[in-house]
């Protein structure tokens, strides 16, 4: 029912727990920023002015994206394992691709926004 070794399964389990802790912090920051930023309307200029060229925000979003790209696919793997009859190899392939997709889109957005601002 599984292809990974028990040690790998345990590491992945640990990775999901650690990424959950990171996400808990990131989501709070994210929501707080959104609530603060949305006061008095939201515009692309405003977002770029805040994030563009700012190294601190870049690091924050890179960490956020990395945590999502680790956490969500591992959860999806469990859901697919328990809820579908797909063979585990197929599931691992699917969630692997999903992880790469999330990471690629997320990092692209983070670097993209960073590149838009600054002087």
């Amino acid at each position: 029912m599984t292809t990974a070794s028990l040690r790998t399964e345990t590491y992945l389990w640990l990775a999901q727990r650690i990424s959950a802790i990171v996400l808990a912090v990131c989501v709070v920051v994210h929501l707080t920023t959104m609530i603060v930023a949305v006061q008095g309307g939201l515009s692309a200029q405003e977002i770029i002015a805040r994030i563009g060229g700012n190294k601190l925000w870049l690091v924050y979003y890179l960490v956020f994206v990395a945590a999502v790209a680790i956490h969500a696919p591992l959860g999806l793997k469990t859901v697919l394992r328990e809820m579908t009859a797909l063979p585990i190899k197929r599931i691992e392939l699917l969630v692997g691709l999903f992880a790469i997709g999330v990471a690629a889109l997320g990092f692209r957005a983070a670097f993209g926004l960073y590149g838009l601002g600054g002087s």
Partner: protein
Amino acid sequence: METDQLSVSIWRGGDGGAYQTYQVPRLESQTVLDVVTYIQREIDPSLSYRFACRVGVCGSCAMTVNGKARWTCRTHVSRVAENGALTLNPLRNLPVVKDLVVDMAVFFDKWEKAMGAFVGDKTRDQALAAVSPSDPKRKEASAGIECIGCGICYATCDVVDWNKDYLGPAAMNRSWTLINDERDVARIPRLQAIAGDNGCLGCHSQQGCVERCPKSLNPTGAIAGLKRHTMKAALKGELT
């Protein structure tokens, strides 16, 4: 609502069976097992069910009563009947042999898989190990040791339903008592046996097993302990 008759629907046959309904006189302090016994003795001798001790010791009388797994010898009809009716099914997650009897083989095979047997290295000529009752590990073991092997937790666990290789709460609860037994010498092989997604990491920690265990044990807590131990073992390179 108290009535003088109880309407009892029982699942008859195996997987392709059907419900059959019986009228049973309502008695004071009647247990669900009393009801089943009455039906078998007075109405339909072909009804199959399992029991032995009738006092909550042997763990053989578990059935699904109005949708929930229970030990029927210690379950009073007054606590579970809904509008004077009972619906009885065999335990979930186990193959049905006939009527209310399930095949418990898989359940106990998994105890073996989880290395549920004690492994010692002393002979009868050596002195007995002195284990203090106040030792924290002894306390952990004591908390889980009273399992009667009824299979109620196993029947309740959704992960067992979803993943046929999942070891289940009772087997891992047993492993946990042995991990905490300081006379046992098979810690690493046992952690290896219960590690991974088919073992302790598969548990969702939602405590259905805890809620239903008739002995008020805490298999979820035991599995959480196993998660901590396997995690440390993996980090130390003790797992493969």
